[in-house]
């Protein structure tokens, strides 16, 4: 019992596993051949459905078989019992639990929901809470976020009511938990754009939102000046139409000015601490200078060239892009 060395143990197990694997591969190949043959013969029965289940159990990424399965379902749906659709949802859920990042499973699930004619609002709401749970386990799974947008869109149609405000609250919670979440910031972009486009806010609310957003961004860049998702969002925010619409020219310039000061502060701090300037800060400063120029007001000193030259040294991988920008 004691004194058994580990190395010996694992070599034996390794050999055993190899043998087991060979068997598994044989079984799988046989199953796939059988399934595809039946499909070629256009056989759509509940037996062929079972067969696809077996294959997908072993390999959920085999999209051909998913397609075949959908064909079968379409053929069978008139004679199918009422629980059929729920069972199908259950089937995809089992797969998703094990493989949350496989496109084909997500595809199939949304297809099921869309074709499930008796799908009530309740089912879609339930779907939203499922996405909630998934995102709480893995907040950066963009499949989850994309799926969430599909669900929300459907719910909005069913309820005849826009959900952008609630969704904004949700995404804020997620970002607060971890600002390094590109998918969440992206979602934020979608939501804010929509909120303004669909006129869901009055003028006062819009202005407050913009100002709050500026503080939120500033908080984020100070908390982590190396996080690219934060910078991408900042870039979008500064340049997008919404802000230009809501703020007056003076307010816009003031915002840009303050942001510029903050970024210079952060950049200098980085220089002092590590001896190197911060690439993102430099890039953002160039963007801000561009934005200031576009307001038509004269800019006292243009540091763009200086920044680009620094970036050429700091970020040699993108040297040619900076050289290109310098030439413009």
């Amino acid at each position, binding site marked *: 019992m*004691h004194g058994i060395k580990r*190395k010996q143990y694992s070599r034996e197990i*390794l050999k055993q596993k190899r043998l087991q694997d060979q068997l598994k591969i044989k079984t799988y190949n046989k199953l796939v051949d059988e399934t595809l043959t039946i499909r070629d013969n256009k056989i759509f029965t509940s037996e062929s459905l079972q067969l696809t289940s077996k294959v997908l159990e072993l390999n959920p990424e085999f999209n051909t078989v998913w397609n075949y399965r959908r064909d079968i379902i379409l053929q069978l749906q008139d004679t199918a019992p009422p629980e059929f659709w729920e069972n199908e949802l259950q089937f995809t859920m089992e797969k998703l639990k094990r493989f949350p990042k496989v496109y084909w499973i997500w595809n199939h699930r949304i297809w099921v929901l869309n074709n499930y004619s008796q799908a009530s609002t309740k089912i879609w709401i339930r779907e939203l809470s499922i996405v909630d749970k998934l995102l709480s386990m893995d907040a950066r799974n963009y499949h989850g976020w994309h799926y969430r947008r599909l669900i929300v869109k459907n719910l909005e149609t069913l309820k005849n009511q826009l959900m952008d405000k609630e969704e904004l609250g949700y995404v804020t919670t997620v970002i607060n938990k971890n600002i390094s979440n590109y998918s969440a910031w992206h979602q934020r972009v979608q939501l804010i754009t929509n909120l303004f486009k669909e006129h869901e806010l009055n003028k006062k609310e819009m202005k407050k939102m913009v100002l709050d957003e500026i503080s939120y961004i500033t*908080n*984020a860049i100070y908390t982590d000046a190396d996080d690219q998702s934060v910078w991408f969002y900042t870039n979008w925010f500064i340049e997008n139409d919404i802000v230009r619409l809501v703020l007056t020219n003076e307010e816009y310039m003031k915002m840009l000015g303050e942001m510029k000061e903050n970024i210079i502060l952060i950049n200098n701090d980085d220089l002092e601490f590590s001896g190197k300037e911060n690439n993102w800060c430099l890039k953002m400063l160039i963007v801000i200078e561009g934005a200031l120029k576009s307001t038509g007001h004269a800019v006292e000193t243009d540091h763009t060239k200086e920044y680009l030259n620094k970036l050429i040294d700091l970020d040699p991988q993108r040297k040619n892009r900076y050289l290109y920008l310098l030439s413009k």
Partner: protein
Amino acid sequence: MLSPERRTSMAERRPSFANFSGNSNHIDTLMVPHLAGIEDPLPETTPEKVDVLIAGTGLVESVLAAALAWQGSTVLHVDTNDYYGDSAATLTVDQIKNWVNRVNNNDIISYNNAKLYLSTSIGPSCKYMSKDFGIDLSPKILFAKSDLLSILVKSRVHQYLEFQSLSTFHTYENDSFEKLTNTKQDIFTDQNLSLMTKRNLMKFLKFVLNWEEMPEIWQPYADKSITQFLFEKFKLEKPQVFELVFSIGLCCSVDTKVPLALHRIRRYLISYDVYGPFPVLYSKYGGAGEVSQGFCRSAAVAGATYKLNEKLYSYNPTTQVATFTDGSKVTVTEKIIMSPTQAPEGNQHIPDQKYEVNRMVCLVEKDCKEWFSEDESAAVVVFPPGSLKSGNKHVVQTLILGAGSECCPQNTSIWYLSTIESGVRAEMDLDAALEALEVSIVRESSSDITDNNDIVKIDEDGRPIINSVRLGQSFKEYIPRESVQHLMKLSYTQYTSTPPFDVVNPALFDNDELNNRANSVNKFIPNASDNGIIYTAMPSSEISYDEVVTAAKVLYEKIVGSDDDFFDVDFEDEDNDTVPQGASVNGTISYENAIDDDDDEDVDMGIRGDDSNEFVGQMEI
């Protein structure tokens, strides 16, 4: 003979398997039988010859006994006491009374100055019974990412134990308790920190997780204090610095050197989010005492022999015969390892115990729930230097255990306080800390507080957060009307040869006490009863279990030759793929991050049922 009064032993108490997440196979293959009778002395089966004799069932000795026993050495493990645990024991109130008397009679080496006050509420046919309480002589907390936790999993001793999470660390500053900000989420959402402070804090947290790989940043400060480093290089301010150094790093003074402090701070941060949003665990039913017992049980299963109430009389290194006070003898072919507390009369080789640790234990008639997070029954409160009325030069560390820890009855709690300060100043510091705690708990639990929403907020996940900042702010205005009832107050001084900081990183073991001692062993002193005996170190002020495995490994290497196979055991399972769940924490372990065992040299395909299920969940930055 056994004292009739003791707490229920591990063998008698069934761990609540409700916490194991639903793997019933796991329980059936529990290969360790319930050891009834391990506590009974079995003189007739004492071996005549053993490889190793270990005296004292403290932490290091017990871990060593188990490691040696599983490696195949024959071990006789004895203890002069009638209980397990020695300096790490968990004792009832009556056992404490006896212990205090023995200390004051100079019967227990390395302890003195024991003072005990006992209220009349504890006793037979009183409100509380003596054995309702389990008092640790060495209170300890277990970091989620630590070598002891890995060993507990590897050896499966964790199956004898139950752990609970401890997420609440309070720093006492300006008469109030501050909440820790140690995650990116905390920093981002904290409304009270300035933007630049947030940036500086985050910079530091990112740095400290990888500090060894960035010598350009800390090398210039290698000999300086951590506080200086944090003020100058990271421009942090006192509240953040003290929080990092004293609550997160659990260091003892402002002068702690940079590399050591960074190591300690990192220890906390990498332990966070391994099993959940907390860095440490504590053992229920008694801390270090239970852990020692667990390893003793494991050793016994592996074949070690146990004898309590056994004291060494002398050892003859030439004949290799050890004689006990009851006349029995045993030949020891390899080594004798002994805790100084077990030393025979006429001993000459006990190492110099020049460092003092002063401790106080109070049994308090308050449940202290206000200090704990939901579902938890413990908290750590740290009083940084200068924060107390006494102007403490060194930190006072306190550990509070509530009834949920199963160490005390309902509506009571145990307060452990300790400091490396010495003499009268230590008393003053401990008393000042005690008073601060009392004033705080009375205020927090008083029904005079009308607006309870201020105390406990609910965050967006529905979890209650103790808003200690709000509490502390109105702290000064509050005049306590009731006082706290002490059921017991115990204070004592312990001595150790381990300097207050050099316990964490083996690389910092530069004074290498044990090697020196081993060498001095060769020095033969005529008429000494303990020639040839290797003494272990007495427990230090360290609140974590960090010193234990390192010390055990060093001794193991001395005996066996190398520490390659330290706890390198492979328990046979029926189901090879069964993976033990690791320390069972209240609620299920919801994390299934990459399973990566640092100790495992074999970078295999993860095919074997990996015994050491060490979750590596790093704080994401």
